[in-house]
């Protein structure tokens, strides 16, 4: 598809519905106690929703490779921050024998 392609109105509606379903799912799961999986599930749904917005509402799916690489770099840097911060949080309770 060319750089100036846009999603069709039908696709917009499908994405919108997917986002609504994701929101309802997050709300519903909040009432179920999944223990330590609660944030994992909520964050997974949130990430899927964010990806849909970026790919279709922000037209990245139809953009050049350079745009995709630029966005990937931003996400990669975010992952550096999260991963290396977690390297602190997840190992605080490891005590030397």
């Amino acid at each position, binding site marked *: 598809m060319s750089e100036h392609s846009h999603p069709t109105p039908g696709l917009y509606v499908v994405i919108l519905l997917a986002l609504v379903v994701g929101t309802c799912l997050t709300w519903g799961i909040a009432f179920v106690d999944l223990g330590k999986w609660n944030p994992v599930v909520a964050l997974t749904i949130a990430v899927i929703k964010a990806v849909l917005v970026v790919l279709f509402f922000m037209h990245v799916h139809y953009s050049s490779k350079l745009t995709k690489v630029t966005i990937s*770099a*931003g996400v990669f*840097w975010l992952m*550096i*921050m999260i991963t*290396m*911060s977690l*390297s*602190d*949080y*997840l*190992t*605080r309770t*490891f005590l030397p024998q």
Partner: protein
Amino acid sequence: MSTATAIVKPVMPERHFLNDNYGIRSWLLTKDHKRIAILYLFSITFFFLIGGVFASLIRLHLLTPNGELFEADTYNKLFTMHGVNMVFFFLIPSVPAVLGNFLVPIMVGTKDLAFPKINLLSWYLYMAGGTFSMAAMVSGGVDSGWTFYAPLSSGYLKTHVIMLAVGVIIAGFSSIFTGLNFIVTVHRMRAPGMTWGRLPLFVWSNYAASLIMILGTPVIAITLILLALERGFHIGIFDPKLGGDPVLFQHMFWFYSHPAVYIMILPGMGVISEIVPCFSRKRVFGYSFVAFSSVAIAVFGFVVWAHHMFVAGISVYSALVFSLLSYAVAIPSAVKVFNWTATMYKGSIEMSTPMLYAMAFIGLFTIGGLTGLFLAALGLDIHIHDTYFVIAHFHYVMVGGMVTAYLGGLHFWWPKITGRMYPEAPAKLAALITFIGFNLTFFPQFILGYMGMPRRYWAYPPEFQVLNVLSSAGASVLAVGFLLPLLYFAWSLKYGEVAGNNPWQATGLEWETSSPPPTHNFHEIPIVTKDPYAYGEDAEVTVVH
């Protein structure tokens, strides 16, 4: 038979960017990168002077051990406003927004930056951010420290934290726009023949700093917005009383603020990489290594932040990783220092003012960098954390390194910017005074810190007084060194000798155009056929019509 060589005195070009248009409107609505650089020059000088006044008051207060000049709260505000002014409104924009704005398009051989209107917008955002910062200052000041640590700043202080945070966030967007402009310009607008391997090292270093600006700066904005949410709406993010985590603030703050150190120093390193080959009359040693070390510093700089947090209760395993990575970032920095000295080796060194600043940079930055390794060491850091050793370390990098590079660059390109030479004798004197004043101010602080004097305290034990008096005396010498260039630069605008296109006989596209350059930088399209440091060879640029 004797031969006589006629010496032709250079003349000012008839039309250039400074006289192309007149009136306040032509400046405030300009899209010319060179005029925007001048706007930045005046603005950052203003904030530097404000920050300098705060520094002077701090040093005046510390002349005596019992805190006799200011109340403790006032002292807290002084060091906060000093830090905020200097970090966010001087050090970060200084080289990129002034020298980078002026030079990057000329050095790559194009008419302007990729987005001239966004460039102007970045200056307006900078001024808006500065206005918020000044408003916070005049309405009572802020006492959080420039680091805004939560929950102190989010829950306990009664000062204008949010107003100052808004100022910093807005100034951050200005920084993002500058970085974006540089990256797009370097990728898309290089002159024919200006390959990546022929890019001046100043451009490489600004490019690397730009990567940090656009990847890191949004994080400080998000962090300060979260801080404001907690402070304004009691949403628990950082305050343990509200269910938050204070160490999370430090992780997020330093994820930006440590790489921000490299936003400050990388463009300064670029300046040194231009000055050293020019005044050694030699090709830069190991061009590729110097170029890629800039990118390596930018990338490594993102994974070392928790060395600021070794005593904040982080995991020892994580601390070990961050310590090792902090050592790793010293490697590309050392590559630069070795390559600059190797460039000078057997060179025909001319001790002009820019070279004096460059040599001061190499020495002072090396001391600043090596003492950084002390702080990256897990054991030693416990002893010297939050002491004056840290203050001395980062001032050796930021003032001894960055400000020295900025002044060196300003002297080096002053003839290009204004078309006139500054007077060499007072300039050399100022460089010497700055060097002496700087070392007198900050070297005693290494000793004070090692002896255990903590930073940010408004009073100290009497046995530390001698070193504090030395430091304060040094600060007054340093102030003279900083004020002198203001005087002779202003003098040179009217009385300075006309510089001509290339007063230093330097290589590089900026020296091919007139001084000051025309509005569109070049009358004809430059075609680059040689590398930027071809000293001792034919001129590297040919011009086609």
